[in-house]
């Protein structure tokens, strides 16, 4: 028997039809839409020998938005609330708003479509005891591979059916299935090695991942007694995961149109067509990279997800837009209106963001670097939009183009303009990554995103 019910349990489709009829016959305001969600999930943590938590949840509700006289009002609701009442509350919010009105009407594409993930091994059909068994098995493997280490396996899944219906004709529905796992081994001296993987699809993705434990055990062993690198300015090579985090933190957020509107200083610094990086650097956001947790067919305004070139050969080429930011800027939406769940209004957010490949192998990059640090594995990343900080799991000293001793964790920091201008060479293979968490910008919870890039050689970056 499944512990987690399949995502659609019968509330959403009748609610969708009822809202559709209301919006077609008596639309409130100038424009209105309602996003409906019916979802369920499971969060499980195995810490050492103990199943620390096994928390299933179901979450069903919606978000009503009304644009009246160019001003938005929104109302989120759970399933026991009539969506029609939520539309009335949203209209009240809009009419009481003191916001300046949008300068132009919205231009939704009025798409009518649906898409369903069709995983090989649907999450709802895998019993919870199998998932608990896998968490236990991975922790046992980690414990036996790295004696004395504290070990932890964290499994997370989420299935939901998401629908958007709009007063101008939009009516889309998408079923999503996401799952992932994080493995961690930590020991004395602050040594911590982790791997996190997630995808959009079924449980099959998490089977036969024992090789990850072997990789982690090797890394754990080599980090025993390793000293942290000395503070200073270095040439560094970032691995593909760290390059992806740099792309997301250091540039991706600066492409979110609402953030740039809020910070004119940054808008000036990253004006369209400004050359902010060498010509080798091209960065894209692509919601259509299926299988990645950041991908989707329709955004949370019902607009089709697409590919947007953000940085084209070093020049700022595009922004990520919602219907509102697009109306403000006089352009078309890029289909990047996203929200963690129905409790949050959609904002311009990234999907799958990556830097395109260059032409060098990792060995060639090390030779180009000569002396410096090769950073691998991601612990964390953050930005205040102008400065970023990224912590790598470990650094390897490189001398004369050859890797040497392994050092401990390294935290690098810098200003975004400076680091973009200091990228000197790129590897020839892009890898995409996702974790079981996501991006937490200004909202409750984490939005699934994916990020990636090639190995990246950067000149003169500060290691703390």
């Amino acid at each position, binding site marked *: 028997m499944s512990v987690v019910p399949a995502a659609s349990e019968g509330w959403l489709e009748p609610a969708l039809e009822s809202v559709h009829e209301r919006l077609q016959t008596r639309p409130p305001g100038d424009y209105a839409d309602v996003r409906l969600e019916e979802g369920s999930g499971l969060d499980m943590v195995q810490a050492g020998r103990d199943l620390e938590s096994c928390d299933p949840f179901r979450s069903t509700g919606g978000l009503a938005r009304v644009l009246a006289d160019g001003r938005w009002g929104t109302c989120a609701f*759970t399933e026991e609330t009539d969506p029609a009442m939520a539309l009335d509350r949203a209209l009240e919010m809009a009419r009481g708003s003191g916001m300046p009105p949008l300068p132009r009407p919205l231009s939704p594409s009025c798409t009518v479509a649906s898409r369903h993930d069709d995983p090989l091994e649907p999450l709802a059909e895998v019993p919870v005891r199998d998932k608990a068994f896998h968490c236990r098995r991975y922790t046992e493997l980690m414990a036996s591979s790295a004696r004395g280490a504290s070990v932890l396996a964290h499994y997370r899944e989420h299935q939901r059916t998401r629908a958007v219906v709009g007063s101008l004709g939009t009516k889309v529905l998408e079923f999503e299935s996401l799952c992932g796992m994080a493995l961690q081994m930590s020991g004395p001296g602050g040594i911590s090695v982790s791997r996190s993987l997630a995808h959009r699809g079924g449980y099959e993705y998490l089977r036969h991942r024992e090789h990850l434990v072997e990789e982690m055990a090797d890394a754990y062993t080599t980090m025993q007694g390793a000293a942290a690198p000395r503070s200073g300015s270095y040439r560094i090579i970032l691995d593909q995961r760290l390059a992806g985090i740099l792309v997301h933190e250091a540039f991706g957020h600066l492409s979110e149109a609402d953030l740039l509107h809020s910070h004119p200083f940054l808008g000036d610094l990253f004006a369209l067509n400004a050359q902010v990086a060498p010509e080798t650097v091209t960065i894209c956001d692509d919601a259509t990279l299926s299988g990645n947790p950041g991908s989707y067919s329709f955004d949370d305004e019902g607009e089709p997800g697409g590919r947007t070139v953000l940085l084209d050969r070093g020049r700022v080429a595009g922004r990520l837009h919602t219907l509102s930011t697009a109306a403000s800027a006089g352009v078309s939406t890029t289909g990047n209106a996203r929200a963690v769940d129905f409790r949050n209004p959609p904002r311009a957010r990234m999907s799958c963001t990556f830097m395109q490949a260059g032409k060098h192998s990792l060995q060639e990059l090390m030779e180009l670097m000569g002396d410096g640090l090769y950073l691998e594995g991601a612990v964390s990343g953050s930005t205040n939009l102008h400065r970023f900080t990224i912590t790598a799991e470990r650094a390897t000293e490189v001398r004369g183009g050859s890797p040497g001793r392994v050092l401990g964790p390294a935290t690098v920091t810098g200003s975004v303009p400076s680091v973009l201008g200091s990228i000197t060479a790129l590897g020839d293979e892009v890898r995409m990554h996702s974790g079981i968490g996501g991006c937490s910008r200004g909202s409750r919870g984490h939005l699934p995103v994916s990020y990636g890039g090639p190995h990246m050689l950067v000149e003169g970056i500060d290691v703390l």
Partner: protein
Amino acid sequence: MWRASMSSESFRGGALDRLESAEERLLEMADGVSASAEVVGTAVDEESVEVLYGGEIAPHRTLSSFLSLRIVRGGRLGGAGGTSSSPGKLLDMAISTARVGPEAGFRFPGSTTSAPVQIRDPRVEEMGCTDLAGAMERLRDRTAGAYPYSSLEGSISVRRLRVGIHNSRGLKAEYRKALLEWDLQLLVPTSDGLVTFTSAAATCRHTSLPGASLLADVPEHGQLSETTGPVSGEVPVVFAPEAMSVLLQPVRVGVSGRSLLAGSSPLRNMEGGQVFSPAVTLLDRPLMELGAGSAPFDAEGIGTRDKALFDGGLFGGFVFDLATASMAGTESTGNAGREYDTPPYPVVTNLDMAAGDLDISELLELADGGYMVCGFQGGNSDAVTGNFTLDAGAAFAVRDGSLDARLRRLTVSGNAYRLLSQVTGLSRQRRLSGRDVLPYVCVEAVDCG
């Protein structure tokens, strides 16, 4: 027009009646298939305003209700949580998790001894989006007046809550409160980048200008345009309450009975021992008047009580919920916390660090030649070990008892437990940050670069 209240639609008649009915139905169903059961129902009516693109202020309303179920079946614990209209589905999920869940070593309480605590301020309960938008506009005017090119972002909200708990041993209790919350950032562009000031807090007490602490330090004490670079090495540092709240995160984790049982707490076997400087007294205060984390009973119905986590630097002991207390062979301290969709776990509520006897200027004299950190904007912190490397959002050099030039950047690193053992002074002035009331804290030697 936006005004709602505790008597608004979520808290009268329809929605709340339906939630209470769902709680009772779920408990009855669960009681029929398990040895014992517990249901927590939460109704939320929230209004918020958020600063959007171009400085616009967007209103938002949330009407929601959630159920959380825990059962003991076959001697094991199972649970589930979620939105509230399908109790049968939650029960199915809880039964499934009870097959793999931990053994239940405790019983649900048959009654609660609700502690007397003031958690309702009518002025907060009556706030609506109009009031919140007005507060945001006043704050934006003040910040723009101080820094014409700055941008303010974030949100202010008022969240009206009704929390009810029932269990099969007869416990039935509820409380209501309204929280005023804000999470705001002020970004000030300078010739060398952005300076970030943050203010994030929650309280049940009315305040006319949430986020006023964004401007608490700088206009009085320093200029953003004069800059200097940090000198690497160990120097004295004064941490503002916003920075201190971040540094206390490992302590919040370390005092949890869950960390004790996992063997990961640096405080294991330290009860009664001198862990922090004698100047540091840190209380957990669920009975703080109008505190955001205040409540008459915890998420399992156990009566709450204030307790000293550290008294004169001596560690007073861990905090427990029922499950961790039973595993540790002790009693619950009334510290069970719970999200809408998770089972209980031990948490601290409102942290209260005792004030010192120094004015801020006197505290700055202790840090002569060092720095003051107003808050953090990024970095890496290990909540288990307490090790951290954090980037200051705004920091200033300290000279002759006052703030001097702004530091173009500053990274501080070390260990939170060690840092709190090197406290040389605390300010008289305290401020709300997060759910905590904290003073400015001077630390003798902090690794800076």
